[in-house]
């Protein structure tokens, strides 16, 4: 494969973060967040990216590579180096992420227990004030599926509670968790705490 054939689009989403979308899968149907350089050891693409000066975090998810930097400087300059690394890596045919990273990962059952503990001790006692309840439906690898019930189901503020309350609490206690997916049928909520209105 010629590296010139690989198309990569860089999209800075802030001064510190840039997302690179590749025209082919880099880590097919999987994602992994490398929160530091040490974690990247043994994962070829992540190792190469952390070798670039100032790179502080790398997330590799299917056809996207999201990179954080700590150094000053415009993304176009650093982005060119990142593009070269991604192309060179794909040309090798090596896996982007070592299977070994998953060895350190707690099992789904361990993540399930930790998340349930957070829900039981922090989240549910609070959302119960509005008649709400958060149920843990499933954990697949490090992906967590939750369902919002009672006053939270169909609530106009459900998105705020999920993104800034539930996700924040779970990630603080169980940092290995990747995605947190809400599988609630909000349209079927019969007793939402807040109902939208036009003002």
């Amino acid at each position, binding site marked *: 494969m010629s590296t010139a054939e690989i198309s990569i689009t860089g999209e800075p989403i802030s001064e510190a973060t840039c997302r690179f979308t590749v025209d082919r899968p880099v880590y097919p149907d999987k994602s992994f967040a490398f929160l530091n350089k040490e974690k990247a050891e043994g994962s070829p693409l992540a190792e190469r990216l952390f070798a670039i000066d100032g790179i502080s975090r790398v997330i590799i998810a299917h056809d996207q590579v999201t990179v954080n930097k700590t150094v000053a400087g415009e993304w176009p300059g650093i982005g060119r180096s990142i593009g070269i690394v991604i192309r060179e890596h794909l040309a090798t045919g090596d896996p982007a992420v070592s299977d070994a990273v998953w060895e350190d990962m707690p099992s789904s059952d361990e993540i399930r227990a930790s998340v349930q503990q957070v829900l039981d001790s922090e989240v549910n006692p609070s959302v119960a004030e509005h008649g709400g309840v958060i149920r843990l439906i499933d954990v697949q690898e490090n992906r967590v599926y939750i369902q919002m019930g009672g006053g939270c189901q169909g609530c*106009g503020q459900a998105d705020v509670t999920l993104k800034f309350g539930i996700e924040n609490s779970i990630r603080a206690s169980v940092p290995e968790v990747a995605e947190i997916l809400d599988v609630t049928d909000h349209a079927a909520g019969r007793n939402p705490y807040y109902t939208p209105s036009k003002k």
Partner: protein
Amino acid sequence: MPRVLLLLPTTSYRTEAFLDAAVQVGVDVTVASEQANTLGHLNPAALLTLDFNDPQSAAQRVCAFARRYAIDAVVPVDSQVVEVGATIAAALGLRHNSIDSARCAGDKHHARQRFQRAGVPAPAFSLCSFDEDRAALAARIPYPCVIKPLSGAGSQGVMRADGPTQFVPAVDRLAAILKCASTAPHEPPAPREFLVEQFVGGPEVALEGLLTEGALKTLALFDKPDPLDGPFFEETIYVTPSRLDDATQQRIARCAQQAACAIGLTDGPVHAELRLPPGGPSVIEVNPRSIGGLCSRVLRFGTGLSLEELIIRHALQEHQELPRLQGQPAGVMMIPIPRAGKLGEIRGLDEARGVSGIEGVTISAHLGQTLVPLPEGAQYLGFLFARAESSTAVEAILRAAHACLEFVIDP
């Protein structure tokens, strides 16, 4: 990473759109609402409670908060938080509409006074008191007229009267609506005054724009193909781009710019509603907020940016050429509430979703909800979204999908 303060009333339709946009833009977010989130104590950097009815105390609270978590932009998402947003931005020294202009925009009487002084074409109006003798008032009002509360949105409490026999009951009804609203928690006392306006006939349009240092850039112009002749003013279908000729669209844009300038608005989103009588556009409303409900979902700009992303980036003063609205005609239907009662069942959803050109059907009312139609009500049953090769086709698709839906409403 910059931090954006979103002023988000707990009953806003716009929550998901603005939170998704914040993620796309890649900013830290603090959500401020008028009531505490039950998980606020677990994430104090992201969840804040403010008294939206007391802008000064809200601004003091935010200034104290900002000493710990610096705020780079303030984005009020609905009409009811426009004034508090301007007050907070002023206290933080951030670019924003002035407090005076924000307050004026929220008061229909003051806004019309400024239109009049600036020569902006708008309906003739008079400020009336609920304490006046209503029969005497009815005898001196020119007809047809429109009775309105001084503040509010979504046509709640707005009624047309063609003569004294309609005028007096309409004023009684508006007084009852305002009294009922004032009994809700966190609401100020019912006002003692209301507005009576000349009814202006003709089609109505809605302009969505963005102000930068006083210059208004039109982002989208919507036709409202359903006639809005009263007795109530239920908004239903919005379609963009407009089918009006270019010269008329330019007159509308100029008129909206004049109206924004007359109020003193300078920065941020603008939602304007104008009537088109034979003599030229007439301004009905100009508000420093974006389009209400879930209507913004039909708008995509440039490479796929949402309206809310544009608003957040603009508030952060990211220097950018405003992208153009994506080409294909699109529309939304705000599904009206046909009668009062409890929502028992919704039939025909799959059929509506199956209409070719329909992009989405969202029911925002929930089963068991007590439905209140206009003029008392302030909610929608839901929204239909469509996209097609022409604005005419979009309108037909929305009507076809709506015809598939049946709402069983128990008395």
